[in-house]
């Protein structure tokens, strides 16, 4: 018999996330998990496999904007096999055919059309009643107000002024017709927790997060509007050291957030993750 193990901060976070995964899987019949192949997304896959003893028992959704980094798509195909995922890829072909793209449109419009509208389309098609997302409170001020179970109406709107209470491990576990609930198991995690967990669990992630030629990506999105940061961090330890020194926001390299004042709030009110 082992003696009583001590529990670390990461253990606490992991246990809470697994609890949320299982509550969601019980409460909703028709769940999907958006997967961007980014670091948080891969932590979600990992936690799902922990919660469900090795498998991800619901489809995983990639909203392909057609502006993906080729390296990310390669990773997608590899990880699909590695984790045995039921992968659904969605492209808003209608918008692309209309000519919506970064070449001609502003980033907020393109993000809205190719991500949010694409999500609305695929949600209508599969009629999912819950989506599991990798949102963290520390990413952006608008995300700080999120709940673990956060309802969205049929127009995808988030009524952040009148959110259901959440306490004692009890959540809002129902959605009406056309509505869905966002399940957010990583809400309490911060960026450095994600990295420490990836390191501890040896979770596969794209290599673009690590420094090459003095630059690395801290957050990953569409290739035309996602910029690498100056960094020599080529290992997780070095990334953590870097994060502990910085006061620059994680999504600083994501152009659509900064296109106009409150861009992120506007995007999110309209249904952006």
């Amino acid at each position, binding site marked *: 018999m082992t003696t009583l193990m001590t529990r*670390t901060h990461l253990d606490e976070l992991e246990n809470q996330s697994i609890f949320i995964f299982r509550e969601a899987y*019980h409460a909703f019949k028709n769940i999907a998990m958006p997967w961007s192949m980014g670091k948080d997304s891969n932590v979600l896959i990992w936690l799902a496999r922990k919660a469900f003893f090795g498998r991800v028992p619901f489809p995983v959704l990639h909203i392909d904007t057609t502006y993906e980094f080729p390296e990310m798509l390669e990773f997608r195909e590899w990880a699909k096999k590695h984790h045995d995922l039921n992968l659904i890829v969605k492209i808003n072909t209608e918008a692309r055919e209309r000519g919506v793209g970064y070449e001609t449109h502003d980033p907020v419009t393109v993000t809205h059309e190719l991500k949010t509208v694409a999500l609305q389309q695929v949600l209508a098609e599969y009629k999912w009643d819950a989506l599991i997302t990798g949102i963290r409170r520390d990413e952006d001020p608008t995300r700080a107000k999120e709940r673990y179970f956060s309802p969205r109406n049929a127009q995808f709107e988030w009524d952040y002024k009148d959110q259901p209470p959440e*306490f004692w491990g009890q959540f809002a576990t129902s959605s009406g017709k056309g509505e869905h609930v966002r399940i957010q198991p990583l809400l309490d995690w911060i960026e450095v927790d994600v990295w420490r967990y990836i390191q501890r669990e040896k979770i596969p992630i794209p290599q673009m997060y690590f420094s090459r030629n003095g630059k690395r990506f801290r957050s990953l999105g569409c290739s035309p509007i996602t910029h690498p940061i100056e960094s020599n961090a080529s290992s997780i330890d070095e990334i953590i050291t870097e994060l502990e020194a910085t006061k620059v926001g994680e999504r600083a390299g994501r152009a659509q957030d900064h296109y106009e004042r409150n861009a992120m709030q506007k995007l999110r009110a309209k249904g952006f993750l």
Partner: protein
Amino acid sequence: MQEEQPLKIVFVGHVDHGKSTLIGRILHDTDSLPEGKIDMVKKACAAEGMEFEFAFVLDALLEEQKQNVTIDTTEIRFKTKPRKYIIIDAPGHKEFLKNMITGASRADAAVLVIAANEGVREQSRRHAYLLSMLGIKQLIVVINKMDLADFSEKKFEEIESEYRKFLAELGLKARVFVPASAKNGDNVASASKKMKWHRGPTVLEALDLLEAQKRDVDLPLRFCVQDVYRFDDRRIIAGRIETGKLRVGDELVFSPANKASKVQSIEEWGGNAHSEAIAGDSIGITLTEQIFVERGYVASHQTDTPIEANRVHADVFWIVREPMRAGHLYDLRLATQEVKCEIVSIDEVMDSSTLEATKDKREQLERNEVGRLTLQTRSPLVIDNHDRIPKLGRFVIVDDDRICGGGTIFGGVYTDRTVAKSKNIFWVEGKITAEARAARTGHRGAVVWFTGLSGAGKSTIAQALERELFARGMQTYVLDGDNIRHGLNSNLGFSPEDRVENIRRVSEVAKLMADSGVVAITAFISPYRMDRRRAREIALEGNAEFVEVFVDAPLEVCEARDPKNLYKKARAGEIREFTGIDAPYEPPEDAEIIVHTDRQTVNESVATILEGLLPRLEPEESNA
């Protein structure tokens, strides 16, 4: 390197008493603000022609700045030398009670802010009350805005003395009272020169004295089942240990079924298999004996079981506009259990701010009130008294899928497992529909048709199943040879025609019972497919659910068991046309459920049947 757990603190108190300012000041003084944040806010203030305030630093959303009221729980981090903190900024505006509860319920400790110039106000008291309900034991009181009270020691002592008295009534005790001025930074990070009379700690020093909430490892084991997974050949019982600890090999008792089995393994994907798990762990276990377990069950050790009750006494706080009414059916959720409940009586109502209680006869509980209630649940609830095991002694009340209030249980008696009769009265006009019956009983009627050789175990399992269903508060009855042959069918013999008639009558009676809302279990050999098909058709004509259960055991096994010596007599020729000997048995081709009694124990067989049966008995969802 191990990351230590940050301490989660919540700031509460009356609106405009300076919570946000205090937080802004703490962030500033601990150098925790993002680069340029202060300058940005200063510029914004200048542009609007307003004086800079630390409170604005927190107001992340545009709407908040407009209303100058914090709208929801935000979360901010800072560090002192000894440790890290997460601030859950709970708002004080009266409308936003449910946000404050959401925030505060996650906290290790609370900082309650009272403005020195205004003193103890309505929300100073109400928030303290909610903290005590939510189980937060560590409290620091900051008497803020001392600059508006001439930094007066006398004023500070007046407020401290008044508020201490109030807290004592709630069973709360503040660690320390700190006189401060968040605006000017007095006694926040550094000792105030204007209040040299204060010998206690500053706000930050007081925070550093708090302790992180400990996992409840030393309490009795309560493992709350979230789900049972069968993704592969393992049957994994998944859930969270709320209190206590559990080891491989432990004998567990599952309530409310009161069935025992041993922990065979603690399952984990990818990691090292552990032999032990403790409070707070989300785990999965397998059992040595496959007893029936489902979501809502609570596992404990045999020496320290929880209470089973369908009537509880509780203090309930109500947070939505629509009052809680007697005669209305609510959902009660406690850990992973969910049952229907209603108010039996409102024994006392208290205003959560004044603590004034009234015992006047009341039919409903209004928002912001706390009621001492007696609640009746439709099916048994597994509970503990809140003062003993808080996590199993608290629940939320849900109406129309919205959480409307919370409650804590007291006065449960640990030996009492009796089931009180429901007092519900329903008035229904016109024909009573199957839906109305199902709504009352919580399940649909059904015919559960057992078939199998003599000695296969039909009657034994049928009766075990009946007990199991009955214990869940369900209406159920077993029809077998004993109660049918001697009465209803006493004029029938064992000729082929009589056998057919026997089964036909049983089919009709079972259908009527199912139609009346009962789960009718029949236990007859019923060897012919044709007869069973007709039983199914009769049931379906009456719109009753029909579930065929094949109680399967090889003839040799049944003959060896021979509980009534019938096989012996048949072999000796004393009984003619005995099924399996000189009459055929036609095994079902499409039974809904099959149990193998040569390999499964009675408990395991019942577990298999429950798994297949219970989902079919759920009332039609009237979900939007």
